[in-house]
């Protein structure tokens, strides 16, 4: 069917080509012979298809069983039930219509100059160029090497978890240092810190925090002092932006390069991104070698930018 359709269209074009009057009797004799026309046309079409890189079967549309299964699945997703035989037939016919439209659109060159198609193709090419690198799963050794190479990126800063008893400088005024000293004595004597001191809006028990995070809560001077405390002991009164604090570092986590198992996801993501970029650069270089590139007067372009 399809071939015949193409043939009909083709013959109209073919008929227009030899407009000039025939000069030899040979041609004149065969002008009225449809069978020869058909044969010639077939040869021409075949040659054109070969030249255009299409297989002779491009004019036929196959609807394999897998595809039908796919259509049924889509239908199921949308409607929650499988299509009836009539519905399935409609799905298949709809598919054929769309395929024909698609091929005809390509034949007419409708894909050219279309921003969306262009984008999509460029993107697919990008994936293709990147795919070698991203398909291969990096080994643990490779991941670990990458982690060590970029140690600063994955390092966790020193962090402390703390409990503190707050003495509000505004509330106690000049007496605040004395109140703090008194509270410290009680703490050292074993009093429960939960019962002592003034309330502190941003929490009296803080989970692991870095110096920078503590500075954002209490001020920089306090944060620096806390990082120097030894764990498990009540500190001297430390001045913050708000008053005095008796601090007990509950847990300290030294700055460290985490093991691969802890940062595996990030390392994998970063290494893959780097490999993808590298693969694309290499492939791009290789592909570009196929083209002669000429950029017109870059000076003029720069001047235009500068003028703006």
């Amino acid at each position, binding site marked *: 069917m399809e071939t015949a359709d193409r043939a009909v269209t083709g013959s109209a074009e073919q008929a227009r080509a030899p407009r000039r009057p025939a000069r030899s009797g040979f041609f004149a004799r065969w002008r009225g012979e449809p069978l020869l026309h058909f044969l010639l046309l077939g040869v021409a079409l075949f040659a054109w298809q070969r030249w255009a890189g299409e297989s002779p079967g491009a004019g036929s549309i196959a609807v394999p069983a897998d595809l039908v299964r796919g259509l049924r*699945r889509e239908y199921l997703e949308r409607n929650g039930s499988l299509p009836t035989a009539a519905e399935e037939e409609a799905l298949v016919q709809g598919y054929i219509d769309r395929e024909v439209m698609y091929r005809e659109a390509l034949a007419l060159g409708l894909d050219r100059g279309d921003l969306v198609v262009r984008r999509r193709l460029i993107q697919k090419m990008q994936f293709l160029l990147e795919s070698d690198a991203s398909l291969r799963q990096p080994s643990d050794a490779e991941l670990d090497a990458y982690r060590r190479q970029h140690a600063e990126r994955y390092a966790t800063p020193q962090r402390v978890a703390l409990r503190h*008893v*707050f003495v509000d400088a505004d509330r106690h005024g000049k007496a605040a240092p004395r109140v703090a000293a008194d509270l410290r004595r009680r703490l050292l004597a074993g009093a429960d810190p939960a019962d002592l001191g003034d*309330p502190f809006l941003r929490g009296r028990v803080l989970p692991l925090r870095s110096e920078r995070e503590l500075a954002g809560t209490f*001020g920089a001077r306090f944060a620096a002092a806390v990082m120097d405390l030894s764990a498990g002991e009540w500190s001297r009164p430390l001045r913050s*932006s708000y008053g005095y604090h008796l601090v007990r570092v509950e847990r300290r986590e030294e700055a460290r390069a985490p093991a691969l198992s802890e940062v595996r996801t990030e390392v994998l993501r970063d290494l893959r991104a780097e490999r993808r970029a590298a693969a694309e650069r290499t492939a791009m270089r290789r592909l570009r070698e196929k083209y002669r590139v000429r950029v017109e007067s870059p000076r003029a372009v720069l001047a235009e930018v500068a003028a703006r």
Partner: protein
Amino acid sequence: MPKPPWPFFLLVAAMLLAGCGDDNDVASNPTPPPLQHCADYNPLRNVYFGDLHVHTSFSFDAYVFDVRTTPEQAYRFARGEPLSLPPLDAAGHGTQTIRLKRPLDFAAVTDHSEFLGEVEVCTTPDAPGYDSAECRAFRVGGNAGQGGLGILTTEVMPQRLEGICGADGQVCLTQAGEVWRRIQQAADEANDDAPDCRFTAFKAYEYTANTSISTLHRNVIFRGERVPFPISYIERPTPQGLWAELKATCLDAGDGCDALAIPHNPNESNGKMFLAEYPGAQSVDEERAQAELRASMEPLVEIYQHKGDSECMNGLSGILGAPDELCDFEKRRQPPFEDCGDGVGSGGPANLGCLSRRDFVRGALLTGLEEAERIGANPFRLGVIASTDTHNGTPGAVEEDGWIGHRGSDDATVEARLGAPTRRTGPSFSPGGLAGIWAEENSRAGLFDALRRREVFGTSGPRIAVRFFGGWHLDGGLCGDPAMVEKAYDSAVPMGAFLPGKPAGTAAPMFVVSALRDPGTPDEPGTQLQRLQVIKGWVENGEAHQRVFDVAGDPDNGAGVDTQTCRTEGPGFDSLCTVWTDPNFDPRRHAFYYVRVLENPSCRWNTYTCNSLPPDARPEGCSDPAVPRIIQERAWTSPIWYEPQGSG
């Protein structure tokens, strides 16, 4: 839970299969978030500071002013990395670099959803439409470039420009999908999941309605990863349309999607943003349904940003009570202006048309109470945040000292910022503020849920921490109780909530109000606090009332600032706390209470800028007495509401 029937599995399997090899989804959503707590998890809630209103080069009105910041760069900036900005040099690179002294805890890039595709088409050579007259006009840049697209957001029945988008607009919508995917990808990459949770990046956009030239803008913030296509004014030219579609495509989608919309700049809405209107409603029941929908979609309002303050304004009709002198803060407009009364006007974005009491949060909250009394549902249950609305892609750049403007080349120069005012430049603009959130942990879910329950506040820039609880039986000694926060959560409700029913035997609601000043940075210690205020609004005999109570601190502490050196002088407070009882409580009246925390006076941005220039190089704004040199920075909490029993 009943065992799902087998077709359910079939369906799931089919969906999984459909997902395989489907390359439409390549860029989105790599892995689901792990189901574990963040390292900073605290059941008593931590405070986080961030910015929920950020534009990048994907916004048409940023691109035309040479802003080339991408969402990725904006998020990196929020996390503390440097960024270069216009003016551009000959090679197209920014010529000034800025960096946050303190990184943010969270941010949302909120580019205008309206023209995501148009900007892309008009800046991509080869695109169909690239050579259209409309795109050429856009690329001219500046006002002219912005106007061609921007005008559509003022039309009642807007349509996409055919020259750019094709007859059916499809080109632009398809492109918008691509851009939206890049925005999402930037958010997903910047978002730091458990266990560390150092930064949260929300997927978000701005819905930009300027209907009849009044600002009706909303930022749409999503809770999670799965999000629908961004809704724009062009396709849905009414806020009601936005809510309905957001509800249908997200909240009711059954895929875990959740979102909320945050209106901003009611101060430019000529009475329209918080008009109590119920289009098409035929009965009180239908009005109530609309009010409930609105309240559920819009639980918050942005009270302050670079286009000024929207808290309150003296001199407008419809609210009884003594003037509140502290409303005179970062106002885009000064008297004389027309009062809209109960009506509406037009021209707000250009500083034209009437002003309404409803253009300010206090008036909107009061209108909400009136509606609660009238129909039994309050459409304006508004919690409060602040943000920047930067168009430079610089979330959280709120420092007064060294402010370099908010919109690319438009106000990149001192002359633009301090010369004669224009529609978008001049001394009445400012760096904007921050959103404060009380949440258990710094994750999308943690922060979003706090936004939803309104346990949030806004600041004019400083990182002031403020807690506000209300209840009926509070211990008067809470401010001296080390377990104050635990006990407050046990016996009271936090900011953003409704007071529980009044128990018999209680006289009036009690509140714990407590604040810590900004701890500052090593170079800048932060400014001390001056006082805490509770602002009460209520409705009585059909009339709206306001009253401001000074509840802690000292309004007459005599603190000041030397405008030559910007050194602050005089006493202040590092922290303030009080337990306060409403002295005029009437259990029959709807009421709200919110807190305003005030710092001592400090230098406004223009004073730093002017001081840094030689006297003969100072623009007119440096000597104009109408331009304030001093600012009293502040924080505003979300309200706590009281509803009489048996109502609503």
